[in-house]
C-alpha cells in the first residue's frame, strides 16, 4: 500500500473523528468537507477516476453546501452552551467499537478474500457510459425518478406556509 494512500486515509479518519466530535457545528461541517475530499483522493488513487470526480462534484459541491445552509437556517451556527453529547453516549461508543471489532475481525480472518493483487483495471468514461445505457438503464431511470421525487418532496417539506394577513397588514 503506497504511502500517499495511507497518509490520505489517516487524514480522512482524523477529519471524520473531528467532524463527529467538535462542538461548533460549522467546524464539523468543514471537517466533513475534508473527509469527502480525502475519500475522493482515495478513489482516485484506487483508479476510479470518474467516481472520484463525481464525489467532489456531488458531495463537496452540493451536499456539504446543503448541510451548511441547514445549519444556518436552524440557527445552529454559534458554539452551543449546553452539552452536545446525548445522555447514553457510552453505549453508543461501545456499540460502535463492537461493530468495528466484528468487521475488522471478519476482514482479517476471511478465507474468501482474494490473496493476489490484481492489475489495475483499465476503464474509460466511454465504458461507463456504455454500461450505464445498456446493462444498468433501469437503475438509471429509477434514480432519475427518485431524484425528482426527492427534490419535489424536499421543497414541499421545507416550504414556508403562506401566512394569512388581514386588511390592516397584521399577520396570523
Amino acid at each position, binding site marked *: 500500500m503506497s504511502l500517499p494512500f495511507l497518509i490520505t486515509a489517516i487524514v480522512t479518519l482524523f477529519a471524520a473523528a473531528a467532524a463527529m466530535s467538535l462542538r461548533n457545528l460549522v467546524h464539523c461541517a468543514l471537517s466533513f468537507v475534508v473527509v469527502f475530499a480525502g475519500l475522493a483522493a482515495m478513489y482516485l488513487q484506487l483508479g476510479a477516476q*470518474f467516481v472520484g*470526480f*463525481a464525489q467532489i*462534484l456531488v458531495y463537496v459541491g452540493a451536499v456539504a453546501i446543503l448541510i*451548511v445552509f441547514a445549519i444556518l437556517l436552524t440557527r445552529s*451556527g454559534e458554539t452551543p452552551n449546553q452539552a452536545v453529547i446525548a445522555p447514553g453516549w457510552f453505549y453508543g461508543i461501545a456499540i460502535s467499537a463492537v461493530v468495528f471489532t466484528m468487521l475488522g475481525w471478519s476482514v482479517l480472518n476471511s478465507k474468501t478474500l482474494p490473496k493476489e493483487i490484481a492489475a489495475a483495471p483499465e476503464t474509460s*468514461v466511454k465504458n461507463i457510459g456504455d454500461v450505464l445505457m445498456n446493462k444498468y438503464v433501469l437503475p438509471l431511470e429509477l434514480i432519475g425518478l427518485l431524484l425528482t421525487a426527492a427534490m419535489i418532496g424536499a421543497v414541499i417539506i421545507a416550504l414556508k406556509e403562506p401566512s394569512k394577513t388581514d386588511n390592516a397588514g397584521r399577520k396570523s
Partner: protein
Amino acid sequence: MFDQLDQIFVTLKHLLMGYVPERWQPLVSAVISIALIPVIFPGLFSIVTILERKGLGRIQNRPGPNRVGIPFTKIRLAGFGQFIPDGVKMLTKEDIVPRAADKVVHFLAPVVMLIPVLLAYSVLPFGKNMTIADFDAGVLFFFAVGGAVEVSVFMAGWSSRNKYSLLGAMRAIAQMVSYEIPLILSAVTVIMIAGSLNLSEIIAKQNHYTAGIAHWYVFTPWGFVGFILFLIASLAESNRTPFDLPEAESEIIAGYFTEYSGFKFALFFLAEYLGMFAICTLGMTLFLGGWTAPFACLTWIPSWAWFFGKLLAFVFLFIWIRGTLPRLRMDQLMNFAWKFMLPMALINIVAAGVWHFMGADSLRWVYSGGILAVAYALLGRGLMNKQKLGKRTYRYAE
C-alpha cells in the same frame, strides 16, 4: 517552420528533460508544467486589471490610470505599469483580522478558494499537445473543482462574524449553485455531440475546415445558443456584472470578503480573476475550438497565440459587459437562472439531439434552429409579460 513555432514550448521542455537523469524525469516534467501556471496566469491577471481599469474608464468617459509607467522613472507608458504599485500596496497593507472572527477558518478561506481554481487549469489545453493532465474525464474534473469554490465562499463569509458578509456569502453561494446547472447543461450538449469528456478530443472534433471555415460548435444553432448560455452562466459564476450583487461596492461593500485586507484580499481577487480566465478558456475550448483557427488560411499562426488571443477577446467582452449593463437584483437573478436559462438549456439538448440524429441533412439547421427560436420566443416573451411594469407603488406609505 510555423509548425516548429507552434510546438516550440513542447520542444523546449523535451530539451530540458534531456539534461535531467532518468529517475527524476517524471517529477521534473510535472514540476515544470505546473510551475508555468502560477507564473503565466497571475501575470495575465495583472495585465487584465490594468486593461479593465482603463477599459471601464474609457466606457465611462474618463481616461483610467494613466500616470504610472515604470516606477521611479518618469516614463509614463500610458499607465500600464499600474499593477506594480497595486501589487506592492496589497502585499504591504496591514492584515486586519476581526477580533470575533474564527481565526483558522478566516485564514484558510482564501487558500481554499485559490487551490481549486489553480487545479482547474491542469485540464485546459493551451495549444496543440499542451495540456498538463489530459484526463479522460477532463470536463467533469473542471466542473467538480469549480463546485469546490463555493465552500470557500461560505468559509469567508461565515468566519468574519459580520452579518453583511454572511448575507453576501449566502447570496453568492445561491447564485453560484443556481447558475452551475445551466453551465453544466450547456456543456453537456457539446459533450453529447463530441462523444467524449476529454478536452483535447473535443478540440480535435472541431478541427476540420469546410469551405475555409472551421467546424466550431458555435457555428451550429444549438452551439450558438449553448455558447450564449455558457457565457451568461460564466458571468454569474465569476460574480461579474451584471451578476455581481454579492460583491458590489454600492450594495454590500464587498460581500463575503469585506473583512479581508492585505494579502488575503489579494488572494481572493487573484482567485476570482483566475476563475474567470479558467471558465473563459473552457467556454472557448468547448464552443470556439480552443486553439484552432477560425479560417483555414490562418492555421499558420501558432496554436498558443490563438489561445491567448481568444482568451483576451473574451476578457475584453467581459470588461465591456461590465461597463455597460446594470446589475441584476437577487430575485431577478434567480428567476432568470431557474425560469429561463434552465428550460432553455434543456431545450438546447433536445435541439442538439435533433441535429445529431438527422445526419448530414441540410434541413437539420432549420429544425434545430426552429426549435430553439420557438423556445426562446415563448420563454423570453412569456417571462416578460408577467412583469407588471406599471406605476411605482410604495408598500408602507398608505
